[in-house]
């Protein structure tokens, strides 16, 4: 499978801080990839690099095999709207919609109109007076209607109501079915978007801690809960990513396959066992008490 997006050992340094450190990731052509991680993990920096709005300090960024920086041919194939995108003060919605096609050769006005209506975006007031949810909706209109072969959606859910989130999923999947493209989507609402992804990249403090096919990632870890002693006995043979105790009860997220062996041990010890969801994994890696060794190396599958 060819790679739509490729980052090879990318480091991005701002003054003395490494926003990204040795980041390597790939997104195959046509994939829907979730970019997960806590605030400050480096997700928006990754998207800025992919969209050619920034350059790596060291390492290489490739989109369709080419460096996107100041590369007009590649940039015309990328759509990226930042989560904190600013618009000129006197801009109304119609200004944005009329200027968008100039940046997006595959722009679809009908889809844009359908999204605007579904999100109930107002013609007035000026965009600078829009609420957080309305700004997110504008970003989604631009992201989807541009039909860019490589579409980057940065926190598209911020402030969106439940109806709008459902509408976003509906129209995203419908339009992707008709016009396949590569999608990289960053989000904190992991449970809600979980089933959309076929690939996931999990970042923490500027590093990639996990990259895998989503189906594979969901089988990498499990959550054990029950009486503390029994949970600790169960976890003895596994690397523990995160533990959480209240009173005599304990829940641990551990790496390892939820197989028949694990099930029968759990039954013997009287602990509850479930596969870790992507959200469980993100929480475990983001909680800071994960194994230093394994998080430095990262795991991939």
């Amino acid at each position, binding site marked *: 499978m060819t790679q739509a997006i490729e980052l090879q050992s990318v480091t991005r340094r701002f003054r003395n801080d490494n926003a990204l450190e040795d980041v390597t990731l790939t997104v195959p052509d046509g*994939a829907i990839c979730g970019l997960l991680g806590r605030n400050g993990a480096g997700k928006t920096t990754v998207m800025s690099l992919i969209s050619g709005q920034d350059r790596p300090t060291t390492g290489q960024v490739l989109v369709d095999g080419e460096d996107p920086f100041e590369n007009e041919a590649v940039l015309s194939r990328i759509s990226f709207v930042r989560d904190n995108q600013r618009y000129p003060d006197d801009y109304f919605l119609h200004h944005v919609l009329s200027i968008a096609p100039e940046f997006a050769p595959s722009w679809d006005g009908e889809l844009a109109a359908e999204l605007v209506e579904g999100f109930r975006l107002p013609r007035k007031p000026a965009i600078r007076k829009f609420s957080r949810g309305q700004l997110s909706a504008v970003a989604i209109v631009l992201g989807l209607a541009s039909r860019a072969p490589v579409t980057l959606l940065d926190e598209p859910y911020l402030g969106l109501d439940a109806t709008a989130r459902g509408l976003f999923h509906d129209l995203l*999947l*419908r339009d*992707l*079915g008709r016009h396949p493209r590569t999608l990289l989507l960053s989000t904190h609402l992991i449970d809600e978007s979980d*089933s959309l992804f*076929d690939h996931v990249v999990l970042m923490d403090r500027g590093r990639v801690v996990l990259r895998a096919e989503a*189906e594979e990632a969901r089988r990498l870890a499990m959550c054990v809960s029950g009486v503390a002693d029994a949970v600790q006995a169960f976890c003895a043979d596994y690397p523990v990513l995160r533990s959480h105790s209240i009173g005599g009860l304990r829940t641990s997220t551990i790496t390892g396959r939820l197989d028949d062996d694990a099930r029968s041990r759990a039954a013997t010890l009287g602990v509850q066992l479930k596969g870790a969801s992507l959200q469980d994994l993100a929480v475990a890696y983001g909680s800071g008490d994960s194994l230093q060794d394994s998080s430095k190396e990262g795991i991939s599958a």
Partner: protein
Amino acid sequence: MFTGDSPIYQQLAARIADDIVAGTYAEDAAVPSSNDFATFLHMNPATAGKALNVLVEQGVLYKKRGVGMFVAPGARSQLLKQRRADFPQQFVHPLIREARAVGIEPPELAQMIKEEYIP
């Protein structure tokens, strides 16, 4: 909609198989496309495609190139046979484990099943 217990594509394949057994999709009738399932269930299109392909490999569905996926002749009886074969493991074992745990003896259990079965 989907649980974390088994891969999503397996859960969707199982759901389609259940619908075939229930008669929702008749033999030689079309099943929805992977994009239809993806949009309807808010899931990844490639994952939905994988579920359909699993059923093709099992001979439950067949492909017509450029047209779609269809229920294979004999799919329903094949699936019914499979479900009967899975019945002890899926339903009888857990039932007996729970009966043992709460101290229900076989005659009492048999009586309960009989009463439930014949309303």
